[in-house]
Protein backbone atom coordinates (compact mmCIF):
# COMPACT_ATOMS: atom_id res chain seq x y z
CA UNK A 1 0.00 0.00 0.00
CA UNK A 2 2.93 2.32 0.71
CA UNK A 3 4.95 2.32 -2.52
CA UNK A 4 8.20 3.88 -1.26
CA UNK A 5 10.31 0.93 0.08
CA UNK A 6 10.35 -2.37 -1.81
CA UNK A 7 7.64 -4.46 -0.14
CA UNK A 8 8.83 -7.19 2.16
CA UNK A 9 8.31 -10.72 0.85
CA UNK A 10 5.10 -12.42 2.05
CA UNK A 11 7.08 -15.17 3.75
CA UNK A 12 10.67 -15.30 4.91
CA UNK A 13 11.97 -18.23 6.92
CA UNK A 14 15.45 -18.10 8.37
CA UNK A 15 17.43 -21.04 9.73
CA UNK A 16 14.31 -22.64 11.15
CA UNK A 17 14.62 -25.77 13.25
CA UNK A 18 11.67 -27.47 14.92
CA UNK A 19 11.72 -30.40 17.33
CA UNK A 20 9.01 -32.45 18.97
CA UNK A 21 10.17 -33.84 22.30
CA UNK A 22 13.84 -33.29 21.28
CA UNK A 23 13.34 -35.22 18.03
CA UNK A 24 14.01 -32.76 15.20
CA UNK A 25 11.31 -32.58 12.52
CA UNK A 26 12.66 -29.66 10.51
CA UNK A 27 16.30 -28.69 10.13
CA UNK A 28 17.74 -25.34 9.10
CA UNK A 29 15.05 -24.23 6.68
CA UNK A 30 15.96 -21.05 4.79
CA UNK A 31 13.49 -19.78 2.27
CA UNK A 32 12.02 -16.56 0.84
CA UNK A 33 8.69 -16.86 -0.96
CA UNK A 34 7.94 -14.11 -3.51
CA UNK A 35 4.50 -12.52 -3.80
CA UNK A 36 1.79 -13.64 -6.20
CA UNK A 37 2.83 -17.29 -6.46
CA UNK A 38 1.08 -20.57 -5.92
CA UNK A 39 3.56 -22.73 -4.04
CA UNK A 40 3.30 -26.48 -3.52
CA UNK A 41 4.98 -27.98 -0.46
CA UNK A 42 5.95 -31.52 -1.41
CA UNK A 43 7.60 -34.32 0.52
CA UNK A 44 7.06 -37.80 1.96
CA UNK A 45 4.94 -38.53 5.06
CA UNK A 46 6.59 -37.24 8.20
CA UNK A 47 8.81 -34.86 6.25
CA UNK A 48 7.54 -31.91 8.30
CA UNK A 49 5.29 -30.27 5.69
CA UNK A 50 2.37 -29.60 8.04
CA UNK A 51 4.80 -28.66 10.80
CA UNK A 52 6.31 -25.99 8.57
CA UNK A 53 2.89 -24.41 8.08
CA UNK A 54 2.07 -24.70 11.77
CA UNK A 55 5.28 -22.90 12.72
CA UNK A 56 4.42 -20.10 10.29
CA UNK A 57 0.96 -19.83 11.92
CA UNK A 58 2.45 -19.79 15.42
CA UNK A 59 0.83 -23.10 16.35
CA UNK A 60 4.14 -24.88 16.94
CA UNK A 61 7.10 -23.08 18.56
CA UNK A 62 10.41 -23.16 16.66
CA UNK A 63 13.50 -24.53 18.42
CA UNK A 64 15.59 -21.91 16.65
CA UNK A 65 15.37 -19.51 13.73
CA UNK A 66 12.50 -17.21 12.84
CA UNK A 67 9.58 -16.64 10.49
CA UNK A 68 8.59 -13.26 9.12
CA UNK A 69 5.35 -12.53 7.30
CA UNK A 70 5.46 -9.38 5.19
CA UNK A 71 8.55 -8.41 7.14
CA UNK A 72 6.80 -8.69 10.49
CA UNK A 73 6.43 -11.39 13.11
CA UNK A 74 3.06 -13.17 13.03
CA UNK A 75 1.54 -11.11 15.87
CA UNK A 76 1.70 -7.99 13.73
CA UNK A 77 0.91 -9.60 10.38
CA UNK A 78 -1.94 -11.94 11.28
CA UNK A 79 -4.54 -9.75 9.62
CA UNK A 80 -2.93 -10.44 6.25
CA UNK A 81 -2.57 -14.19 6.74
CA UNK A 82 -5.21 -16.87 6.23
CA UNK A 83 -5.09 -20.47 7.32
CA UNK A 84 -6.90 -23.55 6.08
CA UNK A 85 -6.11 -26.41 8.45
CA UNK A 86 -6.46 -30.08 7.62
CA UNK A 87 -10.09 -31.04 7.42
CA UNK A 88 -9.68 -33.70 10.11
CA UNK A 89 -8.27 -31.19 12.57
CA UNK A 90 -11.70 -29.90 13.56
CA UNK A 91 -14.77 -31.58 15.04
CA UNK A 92 -17.43 -31.64 12.32
CA UNK A 93 -20.12 -32.47 14.91
CA UNK A 94 -19.67 -28.96 16.31
CA UNK A 95 -23.09 -27.25 16.68
CA UNK A 96 -22.67 -24.57 14.01
CA UNK A 97 -23.94 -24.24 10.45
CA UNK A 98 -22.08 -23.50 7.22
CA UNK A 99 -22.71 -19.75 7.48
CA UNK A 100 -21.31 -19.63 11.03
CA UNK A 101 -18.08 -21.29 9.90
CA UNK A 102 -17.59 -18.94 6.95
CA UNK A 103 -18.32 -15.92 9.15
CA UNK A 104 -15.42 -16.99 11.39
CA UNK A 105 -13.17 -15.83 8.55
CA UNK A 106 -14.43 -12.29 9.21
CA UNK A 107 -13.73 -12.32 12.96
CA UNK A 108 -10.23 -10.91 12.56
CA UNK A 109 -11.58 -7.78 10.93
CA UNK A 110 -14.37 -7.29 13.46
CA UNK A 111 -12.33 -6.69 16.58
CA UNK A 112 -13.48 -7.18 20.14
CA UNK A 113 -17.12 -7.35 21.24
CA UNK A 114 -18.58 -6.89 17.74
CA UNK A 115 -20.93 -9.36 16.15
CA UNK A 116 -20.84 -9.92 12.36
CA UNK A 117 -22.60 -7.11 10.50
CA UNK A 118 -24.60 -7.14 7.31
CA UNK A 119 -21.51 -6.56 5.15
CA UNK A 120 -19.80 -9.53 6.78
CA UNK A 121 -22.80 -11.71 5.93
CA UNK A 122 -22.70 -10.38 2.37
CA UNK A 123 -19.00 -11.22 2.09
CA UNK A 124 -19.61 -14.68 3.52
CA UNK A 125 -22.48 -15.27 1.11
CA UNK A 126 -20.33 -14.16 -1.85
CA UNK A 127 -17.56 -16.53 -0.76
CA UNK A 128 -20.02 -19.41 -0.43
CA UNK A 129 -21.34 -18.63 -3.89
CA UNK A 130 -17.80 -18.75 -5.28
CA UNK A 131 -17.32 -22.33 -4.10
CA UNK A 132 -20.86 -23.36 -5.06
CA UNK A 133 -22.01 -23.83 -1.46
CA UNK A 134 -24.51 -20.98 -1.14
CA UNK A 135 -27.54 -23.33 -1.16
CA UNK A 136 -26.03 -25.03 1.90
CA UNK A 137 -25.56 -21.85 3.96
CA UNK A 138 -27.98 -22.92 6.69
CA UNK A 139 -27.00 -26.55 6.79
CA UNK A 140 -25.38 -28.01 9.90
CA UNK A 141 -21.75 -28.84 9.21
CA UNK A 142 -22.29 -32.37 10.51
CA UNK A 143 -24.38 -33.07 7.39
CA UNK A 144 -21.69 -32.26 4.82
CA UNK A 145 -19.63 -34.60 2.64
CA UNK A 146 -15.84 -34.42 2.69
CA UNK A 147 -15.69 -32.32 -0.47
CA UNK A 148 -18.34 -29.96 0.86
CA UNK A 149 -16.43 -29.55 4.13
CA UNK A 150 -13.33 -28.58 2.19
CA UNK A 151 -15.33 -26.07 0.12
CA UNK A 152 -16.65 -24.51 3.32
CA UNK A 153 -13.11 -24.12 4.62
CA UNK A 154 -12.13 -22.53 1.35
CA UNK A 155 -15.08 -20.14 1.45
CA UNK A 156 -13.98 -19.17 4.94
CA UNK A 157 -10.48 -18.43 3.63
CA UNK A 158 -11.98 -16.30 0.85
CA UNK A 159 -14.09 -14.40 3.38
CA UNK A 160 -10.92 -13.78 5.36
CA UNK A 161 -9.58 -11.86 2.34
CA UNK A 162 -5.90 -12.35 3.22
CA UNK A 163 -2.78 -11.69 1.14
CA UNK A 164 -1.00 -14.87 2.17
CA UNK A 165 -2.65 -18.25 2.64
CA UNK A 166 -1.42 -21.46 4.20
CA UNK A 167 -3.43 -24.52 3.23
CA UNK A 168 -2.82 -27.93 4.76
CA UNK A 169 -3.76 -30.67 2.29
CA UNK A 170 -6.88 -29.06 0.83
CA UNK A 171 -7.13 -31.85 -1.76
CA UNK A 172 -7.07 -34.74 0.72
CA UNK A 173 -10.15 -36.94 0.38
CA UNK A 174 -12.18 -34.67 -1.89
CA UNK A 175 -14.00 -35.68 -5.09
CA UNK A 176 -12.61 -34.79 -8.52
CA UNK A 177 -15.12 -31.99 -9.07
CA UNK A 178 -14.14 -30.31 -5.81
CA UNK A 179 -10.45 -30.71 -6.58
CA UNK A 180 -10.94 -28.99 -9.96
CA UNK A 181 -13.02 -26.22 -8.36
CA UNK A 182 -10.38 -25.64 -5.69
CA UNK A 183 -7.50 -25.40 -8.14
CA UNK A 184 -9.41 -22.95 -10.36
CA UNK A 185 -10.06 -20.83 -7.31
CA UNK A 186 -6.42 -20.96 -6.19
CA UNK A 187 -5.27 -19.84 -9.65
CA UNK A 188 -7.78 -17.01 -9.51
CA UNK A 189 -6.46 -15.89 -6.10
CA UNK A 190 -2.90 -16.10 -7.38
CA UNK A 191 -3.81 -13.95 -10.38
CA UNK A 192 -5.12 -11.34 -7.96
CA UNK A 193 -1.65 -11.13 -6.41
CA UNK A 194 -2.22 -13.41 -3.42
CA UNK A 195 0.47 -15.80 -2.27
CA UNK A 196 -0.65 -19.31 -1.47
CA UNK A 197 1.31 -22.16 0.09
CA UNK A 198 -0.32 -25.56 -0.26
CA UNK A 199 0.79 -28.79 1.39
CA UNK A 200 0.25 -31.37 -1.32
CA UNK A 201 0.51 -35.13 -1.42
CA UNK A 202 0.03 -36.17 -5.00
CA UNK A 203 3.19 -35.90 -7.07
CA UNK A 204 1.77 -36.25 -10.63
CA UNK A 205 -0.77 -33.43 -10.19
CA UNK A 206 1.73 -31.19 -8.41
CA UNK A 207 3.45 -30.49 -11.73
CA UNK A 208 0.34 -28.93 -13.25
CA UNK A 209 -0.98 -27.14 -10.19
CA UNK A 210 1.86 -25.04 -8.82
CA UNK A 211 4.15 -22.22 -9.96
CA UNK A 212 6.84 -23.02 -7.43
CA UNK A 213 7.64 -26.18 -5.54
CA UNK A 214 9.18 -26.49 -2.11
CA UNK A 215 10.69 -29.97 -1.70
CA UNK A 216 10.98 -30.95 1.93
CA UNK A 217 12.34 -33.94 3.74
CA UNK A 218 13.23 -32.57 7.15
CA UNK A 219 15.60 -30.28 5.29
CA UNK A 220 14.78 -28.06 2.38
CA UNK A 221 15.79 -30.17 -0.62
CA UNK A 222 14.92 -27.56 -3.18
CA UNK A 223 12.81 -24.51 -3.85
CA UNK A 224 12.16 -23.04 -7.27
CA UNK A 225 10.01 -23.08 -10.40
CA UNK A 226 8.10 -26.32 -10.76
CA UNK A 227 9.87 -27.34 -14.01
CA UNK A 228 13.29 -27.01 -12.45
CA UNK A 229 12.25 -28.96 -9.35
CA UNK A 230 10.75 -31.85 -11.29
CA UNK A 231 13.97 -33.74 -11.91
CA UNK A 232 14.55 -37.37 -11.04
CA UNK A 233 17.54 -36.39 -8.94
CA UNK A 234 15.75 -33.83 -6.76
CA UNK A 235 12.62 -35.92 -6.33
CA UNK A 236 14.67 -38.97 -5.41
CA UNK A 237 16.54 -36.88 -2.90
CA UNK A 238 13.23 -35.76 -1.46
CA UNK A 239 11.57 -39.13 -1.28
CA UNK A 240 14.65 -41.21 -0.47
CA UNK A 241 14.66 -44.74 -1.78
CA UNK A 242 10.96 -45.48 -1.45
CA UNK A 243 10.16 -47.79 -4.33
CA UNK A 244 6.47 -47.08 -4.76
CA UNK A 245 7.14 -43.39 -4.78
CA UNK A 246 10.07 -43.85 -7.17
CA UNK A 247 7.91 -45.44 -9.84
CA UNK A 248 5.51 -42.56 -9.38
CA UNK A 249 8.42 -40.18 -9.81
CA UNK A 250 9.58 -41.93 -12.96
CA UNK A 251 6.05 -41.75 -14.30
CA UNK A 252 5.77 -38.09 -13.46
CA UNK A 253 9.13 -37.23 -14.99
CA UNK A 254 8.37 -39.19 -18.12
CA UNK A 255 5.07 -37.37 -18.54
CA UNK A 256 7.00 -34.15 -18.39
CA UNK A 257 8.44 -35.00 -21.80
CA UNK A 258 5.02 -34.92 -23.44
CA UNK A 259 3.31 -31.77 -22.32
Amino acid at each position, binding site marked *: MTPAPPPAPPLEIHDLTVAY*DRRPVLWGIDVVVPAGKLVGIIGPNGAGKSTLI*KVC*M*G*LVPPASGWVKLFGDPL*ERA*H*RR*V*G*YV*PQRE*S*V*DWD*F*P*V*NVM*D*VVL*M*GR*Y*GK*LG*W*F*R*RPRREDREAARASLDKVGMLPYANR*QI*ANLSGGQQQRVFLA*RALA*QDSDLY*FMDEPFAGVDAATEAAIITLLHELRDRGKTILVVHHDLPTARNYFDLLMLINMRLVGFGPTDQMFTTELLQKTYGGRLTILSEVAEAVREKGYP
Partner: protein
Amino acid sequence: MSSLVPDFDVQRVLVTPWTSDATMNGWIVLMGFLVATTCGWVGQYLLLRRMALMGDALSHSILPGLAGAFLIASFLNPGTADGAGNARGATVMYLGALAAALVTTLLIHWLHTASRVKQDAAIGIVFSGLFALGVILITVFADQVDLDADCVLYGEIGTVGFTDYFQLSGRDVAPLPVARMAIVALLTFAWIQLFYKELLVSSFDPGLASSLGIRANWVHGVLMLWLSVVIVSAFESVGAILVVAMLIVPGATASLLSTSLPRIFSLIVLHAAISSLFGLHLALWLDCSIAGAMVVTGCGLFVLAWLSHVIRVRRARHASLPQDAPPGTLASPSVTPNPP
Protein backbone atom coordinates in the same frame (compact mmCIF):
# COMPACT_ATOMS: atom_id res chain seq x y z
CA MET B 1 -41.73 -53.01 51.99
CA SER B 2 -43.44 -49.67 51.93
CA SER B 3 -40.88 -48.34 54.39
CA LEU B 4 -38.16 -48.57 51.70
CA VAL B 5 -39.77 -45.97 49.50
CA PRO B 6 -41.91 -43.38 51.25
CA ASP B 7 -45.51 -43.11 50.12
CA PHE B 8 -46.17 -40.48 47.53
CA ASP B 9 -48.27 -38.16 49.68
CA VAL B 10 -49.62 -35.49 47.36
CA GLN B 11 -50.27 -33.12 50.23
CA ARG B 12 -46.73 -33.43 51.62
CA VAL B 13 -44.84 -33.62 48.33
CA LEU B 14 -46.74 -31.24 46.07
CA VAL B 15 -49.05 -28.97 48.07
CA THR B 16 -47.42 -27.93 51.38
CA PRO B 17 -44.11 -26.98 49.72
CA TRP B 18 -45.91 -24.23 47.86
CA THR B 19 -48.31 -23.15 50.61
CA SER B 20 -46.75 -23.05 54.06
CA ASP B 21 -43.06 -23.42 53.03
CA ALA B 22 -43.37 -21.46 49.80
CA THR B 23 -40.68 -18.83 50.50
CA MET B 24 -37.99 -21.30 51.52
CA ASN B 25 -38.70 -23.71 48.69
CA GLY B 26 -38.90 -20.85 46.20
CA TRP B 27 -35.38 -19.74 47.10
CA ILE B 28 -34.12 -23.34 46.97
CA VAL B 29 -35.52 -23.89 43.49
CA LEU B 30 -34.23 -20.50 42.31
CA MET B 31 -30.79 -21.26 43.73
CA GLY B 32 -30.71 -24.66 42.06
CA PHE B 33 -31.86 -23.11 38.80
CA LEU B 34 -29.16 -20.43 38.92
CA VAL B 35 -26.43 -22.93 39.79
CA ALA B 36 -27.47 -25.37 37.05
CA THR B 37 -27.84 -22.66 34.40
CA THR B 38 -24.52 -21.00 35.13
CA CYS B 39 -22.64 -24.27 35.41
CA GLY B 40 -24.40 -25.56 32.29
CA TRP B 41 -23.39 -22.55 30.19
CA VAL B 42 -19.74 -22.66 31.20
CA GLY B 43 -19.76 -26.45 31.02
CA GLN B 44 -21.07 -26.29 27.44
CA TYR B 45 -17.75 -24.73 26.43
CA LEU B 46 -15.91 -27.53 28.24
CA LEU B 47 -17.93 -30.02 26.18
CA LEU B 48 -17.24 -28.16 22.93
CA ARG B 49 -13.52 -28.11 23.68
CA ARG B 50 -13.58 -31.79 24.68
CA MET B 51 -12.24 -31.08 28.12
CA ALA B 52 -15.11 -32.13 30.33
CA LEU B 53 -12.49 -33.63 32.63
CA MET B 54 -11.17 -30.14 33.40
CA GLY B 55 -14.40 -29.39 35.28
CA ASP B 56 -13.81 -32.44 37.44
CA ALA B 57 -10.18 -31.44 37.93
CA LEU B 58 -10.83 -27.83 38.92
CA SER B 59 -13.69 -28.66 41.25
CA HIS B 60 -11.32 -30.86 43.24
CA SER B 61 -8.11 -28.87 43.06
CA ILE B 62 -9.92 -25.78 44.34
CA LEU B 63 -10.06 -27.43 47.77
CA PRO B 64 -6.43 -26.66 48.76
CA GLY B 65 -6.95 -23.14 47.40
CA LEU B 66 -9.90 -22.63 49.73
CA ALA B 67 -8.10 -24.22 52.69
CA GLY B 68 -4.97 -22.18 52.03
CA ALA B 69 -6.91 -18.95 51.69
CA PHE B 70 -8.81 -19.51 54.96
CA LEU B 71 -5.58 -20.45 56.68
CA ILE B 72 -3.88 -17.24 55.57
CA ALA B 73 -6.96 -15.22 56.50
CA SER B 74 -7.05 -16.71 59.99
CA PHE B 75 -3.37 -15.91 60.52
CA LEU B 76 -3.89 -12.34 59.42
CA ASN B 77 -7.07 -11.90 61.48
CA PRO B 78 -6.94 -14.44 64.30
CA GLY B 79 -10.20 -15.27 65.97
CA THR B 80 -12.49 -14.05 63.25
CA ALA B 81 -12.30 -17.06 61.00
CA ASP B 82 -15.76 -17.76 59.75
CA GLY B 83 -17.31 -19.34 56.73
CA ALA B 84 -18.52 -17.86 53.51
CA GLY B 85 -21.44 -16.21 55.23
CA ASN B 86 -20.04 -12.68 55.22
CA ALA B 87 -18.41 -10.56 52.58
CA ARG B 88 -14.86 -11.08 53.83
CA GLY B 89 -15.32 -14.84 53.84
CA ALA B 90 -16.60 -14.67 50.29
CA THR B 91 -13.62 -12.61 49.11
CA VAL B 92 -11.18 -15.03 50.71
CA MET B 93 -13.04 -17.91 49.09
CA TYR B 94 -12.94 -16.43 45.59
CA LEU B 95 -9.27 -15.44 45.83
CA GLY B 96 -8.33 -18.92 47.01
CA ALA B 97 -10.29 -20.51 44.18
CA LEU B 98 -8.77 -18.26 41.53
CA ALA B 99 -5.26 -18.99 42.79
CA ALA B 100 -5.99 -22.72 42.79
CA ALA B 101 -7.40 -22.57 39.26
CA LEU B 102 -4.35 -20.70 38.03
CA VAL B 103 -1.95 -23.17 39.64
CA THR B 104 -3.92 -26.17 38.34
CA THR B 105 -4.12 -24.90 34.77
CA LEU B 106 -0.45 -23.93 34.61
CA LEU B 107 0.73 -27.17 36.27
CA ILE B 108 -1.29 -29.29 33.82
CA HIS B 109 -0.01 -27.24 30.90
CA TRP B 110 3.62 -27.45 31.97
CA LEU B 111 3.43 -31.11 32.85
CA HIS B 112 2.22 -32.16 29.44
CA THR B 113 4.20 -29.72 27.30
CA ALA B 114 7.54 -30.08 29.07
CA SER B 115 7.50 -33.85 29.32
CA ARG B 116 6.13 -36.95 27.69
CA VAL B 117 3.16 -37.03 30.08
CA LYS B 118 -0.06 -36.91 28.06
CA GLN B 119 -2.69 -34.34 28.88
CA ASP B 120 -5.25 -36.67 30.43
CA ALA B 121 -2.57 -38.18 32.66
CA ALA B 122 -1.36 -34.69 33.60
CA ILE B 123 -4.91 -33.70 34.59
CA GLY B 124 -5.29 -36.87 36.67
CA ILE B 125 -2.01 -36.35 38.50
CA VAL B 126 -2.44 -32.65 39.22
CA PHE B 127 -6.02 -32.63 40.44
CA SER B 128 -5.83 -35.71 42.64
CA GLY B 129 -2.52 -34.50 44.08
CA LEU B 130 -3.84 -31.05 44.88
CA PHE B 131 -7.08 -32.48 46.26
CA ALA B 132 -5.12 -34.73 48.61
CA LEU B 133 -3.12 -31.70 49.72
CA GLY B 134 -6.39 -29.94 50.46
CA VAL B 135 -7.64 -32.85 52.54
CA ILE B 136 -4.44 -32.76 54.62
CA LEU B 137 -4.67 -28.99 55.09
CA ILE B 138 -8.25 -29.23 56.30
CA THR B 139 -7.59 -32.02 58.78
CA VAL B 140 -4.27 -30.71 60.15
CA PHE B 141 -5.40 -27.11 60.54
CA ALA B 142 -8.98 -27.94 61.47
CA ASP B 143 -9.00 -25.16 64.09
CA GLN B 144 -7.88 -22.40 61.78
CA VAL B 145 -9.69 -23.53 58.67
CA ASP B 146 -13.42 -23.21 59.01
CA LEU B 147 -14.21 -25.63 56.22
CA ASP B 148 -16.26 -28.73 56.68
CA ALA B 149 -15.02 -31.43 54.33
CA ASP B 150 -18.51 -32.90 54.07
CA CYS B 151 -19.92 -29.54 53.15
CA VAL B 152 -17.25 -28.91 50.51
CA LEU B 153 -17.64 -32.37 49.01
CA TYR B 154 -21.41 -32.75 49.04
CA GLY B 155 -22.86 -29.33 49.76
CA GLU B 156 -26.54 -29.05 50.56
CA ILE B 157 -28.77 -26.57 48.96
CA GLY B 158 -31.35 -26.92 51.76
CA THR B 159 -28.91 -25.80 54.46
CA VAL B 160 -27.50 -22.83 52.58
CA GLY B 161 -28.15 -19.80 54.75
CA PHE B 162 -31.30 -18.26 53.36
CA THR B 163 -31.69 -16.03 56.42
CA ASP B 164 -29.29 -13.14 55.70
CA TYR B 165 -30.81 -10.97 53.04
CA PHE B 166 -29.15 -8.87 50.41
CA GLN B 167 -30.68 -5.43 50.85
CA LEU B 168 -31.23 -2.69 48.35
CA SER B 169 -32.31 0.70 49.73
CA GLY B 170 -33.46 -0.89 52.98
CA ARG B 171 -35.61 -3.58 51.42
CA ASP B 172 -34.88 -7.28 51.38
CA VAL B 173 -34.23 -8.42 47.83
CA ALA B 174 -32.95 -11.95 48.05
CA PRO B 175 -30.95 -14.13 50.44
CA LEU B 176 -27.22 -13.42 50.11
CA PRO B 177 -26.20 -16.74 48.51
CA VAL B 178 -29.00 -16.44 45.94
CA ALA B 179 -28.08 -12.83 45.19
CA ARG B 180 -24.43 -13.80 44.77
CA MET B 181 -25.29 -16.69 42.46
CA ALA B 182 -27.56 -14.41 40.44
CA ILE B 183 -24.72 -11.95 39.95
CA VAL B 184 -22.37 -14.74 38.85
CA ALA B 185 -25.06 -15.98 36.43
CA LEU B 186 -25.52 -12.49 34.96
CA LEU B 187 -21.76 -12.01 34.62
CA THR B 188 -21.47 -15.39 32.92
CA PHE B 189 -24.23 -14.44 30.50
CA ALA B 190 -22.55 -11.10 29.74
CA TRP B 191 -19.20 -12.79 29.32
CA ILE B 192 -20.57 -15.29 26.80
CA GLN B 193 -22.33 -12.48 24.92
CA LEU B 194 -19.22 -10.30 24.77
CA PHE B 195 -16.74 -13.00 23.85
CA TYR B 196 -19.04 -15.22 21.80
CA LYS B 197 -16.81 -14.95 18.70
CA GLU B 198 -13.55 -15.63 20.50
CA LEU B 199 -14.97 -18.54 22.49
CA LEU B 200 -16.59 -20.03 19.39
CA VAL B 201 -13.64 -19.87 17.02
CA SER B 202 -11.03 -20.93 19.56
CA SER B 203 -13.21 -23.90 20.51
CA PHE B 204 -13.94 -24.94 16.93
CA ASP B 205 -10.59 -24.27 15.26
CA PRO B 206 -7.66 -23.11 17.41
CA GLY B 207 -5.46 -22.88 14.32
CA LEU B 208 -7.78 -20.40 12.64
CA ALA B 209 -8.18 -18.51 15.92
CA SER B 210 -4.45 -17.96 16.14
CA SER B 211 -4.33 -16.87 12.49
CA LEU B 212 -7.01 -14.31 13.38
CA GLY B 213 -4.89 -13.00 16.21
CA ILE B 214 -6.99 -14.63 18.93
CA ARG B 215 -4.73 -16.31 21.45
CA ALA B 216 -6.31 -19.68 22.12
CA ASN B 217 -4.14 -20.01 25.24
CA TRP B 218 -5.56 -16.83 26.71
CA VAL B 219 -9.11 -17.85 25.97
CA HIS B 220 -8.38 -21.17 27.67
CA GLY B 221 -6.89 -19.40 30.69
CA VAL B 222 -9.82 -17.02 31.10
CA LEU B 223 -12.26 -19.90 30.71
CA MET B 224 -10.47 -21.81 33.47
CA LEU B 225 -10.44 -18.81 35.82
CA TRP B 226 -14.13 -18.13 35.25
CA LEU B 227 -14.87 -21.83 35.65
CA SER B 228 -13.26 -21.67 39.09
CA VAL B 229 -15.41 -18.68 40.08
CA VAL B 230 -18.54 -20.52 38.97
CA ILE B 231 -17.52 -23.71 40.78
CA VAL B 232 -16.82 -21.87 44.05
CA SER B 233 -20.15 -20.08 43.82
CA ALA B 234 -21.89 -23.41 43.37
CA PHE B 235 -19.89 -25.16 46.12
CA GLU B 236 -22.06 -24.50 49.15
CA SER B 237 -25.17 -25.58 47.27
CA VAL B 238 -24.04 -28.70 45.48
CA GLY B 239 -20.48 -29.46 46.61
CA ALA B 240 -17.36 -30.41 44.69
CA ILE B 241 -18.65 -33.70 43.35
CA LEU B 242 -22.16 -32.84 42.20
CA VAL B 243 -20.97 -29.61 40.59
CA VAL B 244 -19.30 -31.76 37.94
CA ALA B 245 -22.73 -33.10 36.98
CA MET B 246 -24.09 -29.56 36.89
CA LEU B 247 -21.28 -28.62 34.48
CA ILE B 248 -21.70 -31.51 32.09
CA VAL B 249 -25.26 -32.87 32.19
CA PRO B 250 -27.25 -29.79 31.01
CA GLY B 251 -24.97 -29.21 28.01
CA ALA B 252 -24.78 -32.91 27.13
CA THR B 253 -28.58 -33.13 27.21
CA ALA B 254 -29.09 -29.99 25.14
CA SER B 255 -26.46 -31.06 22.59
CA LEU B 256 -28.45 -34.22 21.91
CA LEU B 257 -31.56 -32.19 21.14
CA SER B 258 -30.15 -29.43 18.96
CA THR B 259 -27.21 -28.70 16.66
CA SER B 260 -27.44 -24.93 16.96
CA LEU B 261 -25.34 -23.35 19.68
CA PRO B 262 -27.77 -20.53 20.60
CA ARG B 263 -30.60 -23.06 20.88
CA ILE B 264 -28.38 -25.29 23.01
CA PHE B 265 -27.88 -22.40 25.45
CA SER B 266 -31.65 -21.92 25.71
CA LEU B 267 -32.21 -25.64 26.22
CA ILE B 268 -29.67 -25.56 29.06
CA VAL B 269 -31.85 -22.97 30.81
CA LEU B 270 -34.90 -25.18 30.33
CA HIS B 271 -33.01 -28.22 31.59
CA ALA B 272 -31.90 -26.27 34.67
CA ALA B 273 -35.46 -25.13 35.41
CA ILE B 274 -36.99 -28.59 35.08
CA SER B 275 -34.27 -30.38 37.03
CA SER B 276 -34.29 -27.92 39.94
CA LEU B 277 -38.11 -27.87 40.29
CA PHE B 278 -38.66 -31.60 39.88
CA GLY B 279 -35.51 -32.29 41.90
CA LEU B 280 -36.95 -30.43 44.88
CA HIS B 281 -40.15 -32.48 44.77
CA LEU B 282 -38.21 -35.70 44.35
CA ALA B 283 -36.16 -34.80 47.43
CA LEU B 284 -39.29 -33.95 49.44
CA TRP B 285 -40.89 -37.22 48.43
CA LEU B 286 -37.87 -39.44 49.20
CA ASP B 287 -36.65 -37.19 52.04
CA CYS B 288 -33.12 -37.09 50.61
CA SER B 289 -30.42 -34.62 49.56
CA ILE B 290 -31.97 -31.89 47.42
CA ALA B 291 -28.82 -31.29 45.36
CA GLY B 292 -28.54 -35.03 44.75
CA ALA B 293 -32.19 -35.21 43.67
CA MET B 294 -31.72 -32.28 41.29
CA VAL B 295 -28.74 -33.97 39.65
CA VAL B 296 -30.60 -37.28 39.41
CA THR B 297 -33.51 -35.47 37.75
CA GLY B 298 -31.08 -33.80 35.35
CA CYS B 299 -29.56 -37.18 34.48
CA GLY B 300 -33.09 -38.53 33.97
CA LEU B 301 -33.69 -35.73 31.45
CA PHE B 302 -30.41 -36.70 29.76
CA VAL B 303 -31.60 -40.30 29.42
CA LEU B 304 -34.87 -39.09 27.86
CA ALA B 305 -32.98 -36.85 25.43
CA TRP B 306 -30.66 -39.70 24.56
CA LEU B 307 -33.55 -42.07 23.91
CA SER B 308 -35.29 -39.54 21.68
CA HIS B 309 -32.00 -38.97 19.86
CA VAL B 310 -31.54 -42.69 19.27
CA ILE B 311 -35.11 -43.06 18.05
CA ARG B 312 -34.73 -40.08 15.71
CA VAL B 313 -31.50 -41.41 14.25
CA ARG B 314 -33.06 -44.82 13.71
CA ARG B 315 -36.13 -43.28 12.11
CA ALA B 316 -33.98 -41.15 9.81
CA ARG B 317 -32.14 -44.29 8.76
CA HIS B 318 -35.44 -46.04 8.03
CA ALA B 319 -36.72 -43.03 6.13
CA SER B 320 -33.61 -42.95 3.95
CA LEU B 321 -33.85 -46.64 3.08
CA PRO B 322 -36.91 -46.53 0.79
CA GLN B 323 -35.43 -43.61 -1.14
CA ASP B 324 -32.94 -45.99 -2.71
CA ALA B 325 -35.70 -48.42 -3.61
CA PRO B 326 -37.64 -47.98 -6.86
CA PRO B 327 -40.68 -45.70 -6.62
CA GLY B 328 -43.89 -47.45 -5.64
CA THR B 329 -42.31 -49.53 -2.89
CA LEU B 330 -42.25 -46.53 -0.57
CA ALA B 331 -45.31 -47.34 1.48
CA SER B 332 -44.75 -51.06 1.40
CA PRO B 333 -44.26 -52.42 4.91
CA SER B 334 -41.99 -55.15 3.59
CA VAL B 335 -39.01 -52.75 3.37
CA THR B 336 -38.51 -53.03 7.12
CA PRO B 337 -35.12 -54.72 7.32
CA ASN B 338 -34.94 -58.05 9.10
CA PRO B 339 -32.68 -58.25 12.10
CA PRO B 340 -29.46 -60.04 11.18
